[in-house]
């Protein structure tokens, strides 16, 4: 196994306040890592730093052997990091199929894309992705009319279509019903192994369902790292985040 993502002492300060402070992480090929932490622990900010939305003030980020610290967002995306946002963002006036086509265009330049239709391989993958996210019957539906859960799945589909080396998922089950959450867990589990994934999540049922390794953040720093059992048993985690009663 080799490291896909190496985060080394990453940090950012907003007017003196250190939202993320010296975080180091190594994500192995094919791993599914869950980032846990209370509100304000710096989970989303860490994703912002990795994906280039926020520029870091200390530390480095390596994607395999490439130093991608503080690159522009599209460059980081092209290097192989896909990002799903907390508030689902899809192309609301386009159909589900067209949404996925955008993500499957591959080449970044405008002139390279002055041609019709997707390459055959991408078209085949598009149908697979439609099945994976369970929207095959909605392929011709305009994305703006999808339910909240379906919109989340579509955005997940965009990422799979983009086929990055690493997927950053920021609360993929936010606002979902219990049934939708389970369905999302199934989708993410089916990506496990073939994709390397970091998930930020609050929903403990969901975390329990998917988690292998968990990193707990607190006040911008890594508090603990390990599997579900050792995290639950860790007294520092209990004190900082879970409360004295443990994980529910």
């Amino acid at each position, binding site marked *: 196994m080799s490291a896909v993502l190496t985060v080394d002492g990453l940090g950012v300060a907003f007017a003196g306040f250190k939202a993320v402070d010296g975080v180091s992480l190594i994500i192995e090929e094919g791993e599914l890592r869950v980032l846990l932490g209370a509100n304000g622990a710096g989970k989303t900010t860490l994703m912002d730093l990795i*994906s280039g939305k926020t520029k870091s003030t200390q530390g480095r980020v390596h994607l395999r052997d490439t130093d991608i610290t503080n690159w522009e*967002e*599209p*460059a980081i*995306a*092209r290097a192989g990091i*896909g*990002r799903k*946002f907390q508030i689902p*963002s*899809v*192309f*609301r*006036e*386009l159909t589900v199929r*067209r*949404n996925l*086509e*955008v*993500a499957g*265009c591959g080449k*970044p*330049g*405008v*002139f390279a*894309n*002055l*041609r*019709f*239709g*997707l390459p055959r391989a991408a078209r085949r993958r598009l149908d697979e992705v439609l099945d994976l996210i369970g929207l095959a019957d909605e392929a*011709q539906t305009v994305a703006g009319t999808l339910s909240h859960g379906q919109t989340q799945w579509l*955005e997940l589909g*965009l990422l799979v279509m*983009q086929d990055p080396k690493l997927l950053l998922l920021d609360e993929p089950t936010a606002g979902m019903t219990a049934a939708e959450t389970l369905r999302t867990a199934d989708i993410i589990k089916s990506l496990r192994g073939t994709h390397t994934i970091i998930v930020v999540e609050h929903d403990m049922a969901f975390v329990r369902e998917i988690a292998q390794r968990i990193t707990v953040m607190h006040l911008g720093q890594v508090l603990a790292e390990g599997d579900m059992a050792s995290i639950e048993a860790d007294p520092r985690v209990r004190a900082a985040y879970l409360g004295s009663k443990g994980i529910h």
Partner: protein
Amino acid sequence: MPGKRTLDYAAYAVFIALILCAPLVLEEFWLNRIAKFLVYGLLGVAIALSWGYAGILNLGQGLFFGLGAYMMAMSLKLASPTSLQQGSATPVPDFMLWNAEPGAKTDLCCINHGSFLWTPFQNPWFGIGMAVLAPVLVATVIGWVMFRKRISGVFVSIIMLALVLLVRLVVIDAQPLTNGFNGLTDLGNLTVLGVELDPYEVVTYYVVAGTLALALIATRLLVETRAGLILQAIRDDQNRVRYLGFDVPLYQVFFFAVSAGIAGVAGLLYVVVAQFASPTFMDLSFSITMVVWAAVGGRASLLGACIGAIGINIIEAGASETQALVQAWRAVIGLIFVLVVLYLPRGVAGFASDAADAVLSRFGRKRPPAARPASERVAS
């Protein structure tokens, strides 16, 4: 939705056939008028591309139209008989002579400080080329600055609005070079490849109608490409596109420049048909009028916006010349705008598209393709 796309293409085909057949039934005077309206239709296409597809509401499209118009008009002014009889070996526009300092040499090189800029326009091809190139270049520079800085939405509208007024002021102020308020008048006819494009000849109409047909088809094909799809994605959610790895400003600048180029061609053709260029092209009211055409026709549809521009102008011409409406025709136009905004928020094309959907889903396959209601012709 099977058949929808076929209907859409049929609408393009019917429209293009109609404008190409118009000379069979129309006389010269109306042909010249319709040619002007087709030029407005071209502006509708430019607006639909930037507003409907790119989500950039440009309230200064008149800048590109005006640039194209002036570039062409400079060539045609030099080709005019009024420029040739000034006691000079090379043509000199009459207004330059009127504005000249006493004792200035009657020659384009040096009759005033900027007149040398006119020299290459003696070749009509230079004027034609610049009428397209100048708007494209200006749009590229403006677009590059705006979109790199991630300026969007209403701020783009305001910047473009300010720019068009600024350029209008400069053009009016540069009286010795541009004839200021009066604009460029008394133009000659454009002669290319041995054909003289007299505004009242059928051949001129065909040049305009042919250009519109080509522009419609080419623009439609352009938005059907992957780049066009990405452009629409940028309209819906810029940020999402950025995180998929695309250089968002590159796409915005490209399509902004294409839209400007189309507006430039419209300016060029307008000068050929109307035989003048004036700073009024860069009035705020004209740029806003264009947007209204597109809104009425349907900004999400290239053909819709084009038909909107032509239709409104035909109604306007008809209403302003009907005895009973001479006093009230502006109210008639206003009423149409209000009704469309209230009841057809996606314009006539949106209505036609919904009607086509309803018909297709209700009658499905039973309906023979030949029997389509006329309203579907603008479906897009």
